[in-house]
């Protein structure tokens, strides 16, 4: 096995036994990034070799001194909306092309404290708005599956593609309406959005504050449990972070599924779902049954309204959050403005890309006088109904299982000019976000030689149950370790 194929847990075992150093591992990834990233996968916006090697050497020195830490010496990469002190953070936008944070996000601090090594920052749809990473202001990322002709999903497409191409041991992304789970499904890796509030959002460049959440991309569910453990927990710097104890997620793994009640929401098998995706998900349900779970269908009647209410609420929050880009405090400023007012129009008109402008317009419209009640307030009431659907289902079930995405990875360019077609990619992930629930995507096979994802959904703060179901499935189904062939 090559170094770059090691999971987080295998890499840690190698370093703990002294067979392997963080510097060796870090150099192996940096060499692979050099060879496969720019011009091919294009997952990285910024690579930080000097910082990575410095952190790796420090990790090795700590180990030699007899120290250990949960991720000591493990090379990782972060979605480029994660603040990293002294490392450029663009959010995939020209607006922040030269922005160098003066603080670390809480998640960055936690990962550094756990000993992780930063390889670089990962590509994304601008301000996390998109489902294909084609809305990056810099370049699209290519899915390592499908001869580099397909999208990796989005908005955390760089995080998913980097992991699938083994350009990091694990990566971090963020999910607002599916931006971790959908790219994880399309790239054949594990991606987890924990409960809203489980992971601090301090230092996550804001898109829609009632929905945004950080989470990990990993090669398997055990790695996912370990990273979730490190990043979870209360943070006084984020007043929406939950002050609830973080249980030991690793100890949830390995339990069987006897007597576990699993609901399968029928509405998630939407019109237009690909046959191969549906077959892979149904085969996964058979695996869950064979493990002793009670699997039955359940109805979440307001599912159809998830997408429609989300595309009013998220743009509304976006239009408020992105008002901060005024060309004064940080970020791009139009060089040819004649007055302060002129500067606002030109700075925002030139600094934002097409999708971001579309969402700002949509959100401003939904919040504007005369339309607030009919659009924004109405959507918030529908959000209540969506949450109530889940509350009722979780009276009877321990977890819900559904497809993550109705399709496999589509071709680059295929949907980029059709915003509504692009929005439909998130139809199976959005309701979960609207209810703030933990949702994980785990690979469940291939359709047309492209990965399919199975979504496991839990009650609020039931990360442990979600990981347990996903882990049992993964162990029985044997899709972990599925790798694309990168013939370069």
């Amino acid at each position, binding site marked *: 096995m090559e170094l770059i194929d090691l999971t987080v847990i295998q890499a840690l075992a190698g370093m703990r036994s002294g067979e392997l150093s963080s510097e060796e591992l870090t150099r192996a990834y940096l060499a692979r990034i050099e060879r496969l990233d720019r011009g091919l996968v294009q997952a990285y916006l910024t690579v930080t070799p000097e910082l990575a090697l410095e952190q790796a050497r420090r990790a090795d020195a700590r180990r030699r001194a007899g120290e250990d830490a949960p991720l000591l010496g493990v090379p990782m990469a972060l979605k480029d909306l994660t603040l990293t002190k002294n490392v450029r953070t663009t959010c995939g936008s020209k607006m922040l092309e*030269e922005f*160098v944070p*003066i*603080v670390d996000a809480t998640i960055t601090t936690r990962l550094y404290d756990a000993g992780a090594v930063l390889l670089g920052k990962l590509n994304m749809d601008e301000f996390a708005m998109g489902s294909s990473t084609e809305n990056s202001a810099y370049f699209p990322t290519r899915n390592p599956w499908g001869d580099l002709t397909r999208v990796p999903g989005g908005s955390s497409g760089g995080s998913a593609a980097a992991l699938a191409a083994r350009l990091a041991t694990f990566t971090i992304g963020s999910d607002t309406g599916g931006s971790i789970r959908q790219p994880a499904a399309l790239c054949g890796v594990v991606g987890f959005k924990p409960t*809203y509030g489980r992971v601090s959002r301090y230092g996550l460049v804001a898109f829609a504050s*009632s929905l945004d959440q950080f989470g990990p991309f990993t090669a398997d569910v055990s790695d996912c449990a370990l990273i979730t453990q490190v990043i979870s927990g209360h943070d*006084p710097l984020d*007043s929406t972070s939950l002050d609830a104890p973080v249980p030991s997620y690793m100890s949830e793994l390995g339990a069987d599924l006897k007597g576990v009640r699993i609901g399968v929401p029928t509405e998630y098998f939407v019109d237009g779902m690909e046959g191969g995706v549906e077959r892979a998900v149904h085969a996964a349900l058979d695996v869950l049954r064979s493990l002793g779970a009670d699997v039955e269908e359940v109805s979440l009647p*307001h599912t*159809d*309204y998830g997408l*429609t*209410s989300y*595309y*009013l609420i998220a743009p509304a929050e976006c*239009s408020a959050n992105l008002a901060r880009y005024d*060309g*004064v*405090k*940080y*970020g*791009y400023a139009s060089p040819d*403005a*004649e*007055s*302060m*007012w002129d*500067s*606002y*129009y*030109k700075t*925002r*008109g*030139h600094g*934002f890309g*097409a999708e971001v*402008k*579309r969402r*700002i*317009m*949509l959100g*401003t*419209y939904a919040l*504007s006088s005369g339309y607030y009640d*009919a659009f924004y*307030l*109405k*959507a*918030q*009431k*529908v*959000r*209540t*109904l969506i*949450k109530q659907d889940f509350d009722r289902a979780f009276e009877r079930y321990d977890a819900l299982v559904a497809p993550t995405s109705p399709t496999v990875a589509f071709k680059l360019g295929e949907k980029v000019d059709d*915003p*509504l077609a692009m929005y439909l990619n998130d139809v199976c992930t959005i309701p979960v976000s*609207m209810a*703030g629930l933990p949702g994980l995507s785990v690979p469940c096979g291939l359709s047309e030689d492209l990965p399919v994802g199975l979504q496991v959904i839990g009650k*609020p703060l039931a990360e442990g149950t979600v990981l347990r179901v996903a882990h049992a499935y993964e162990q029985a189904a044997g899709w972990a370790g599925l790798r694309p062939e990168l013939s370069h």
Partner: protein
Amino acid sequence: MSISREEVEHVAHLARLGLSEEEKTRLQRQLSQILETMRAIDQVDTTTIPPTAQVIPLDTIMREDVARPSAPVDDILRNAPSHEAGFFRVPPVLETGDRDL
């Protein structure tokens, strides 16, 4: 539903978003399509349903009102597009003939 060009211009003004004529034309068409689709929520009866702004069971978090050190001014100004003598530098604010005043 269809959005007029004047509505596009009004919303862009509210958002302080400079748009080219081409962008206005495209957004007029796209926003009309998108809002038509999102209007599907009209079919849901919500007369007795309260709105949900956020899903977590938290009230406003209070903390002691104690002064803490803030980031050094030089650090903050490092990311400013323009600054002078410890201040952000901006284009003239008070100009005559501005429709926003």
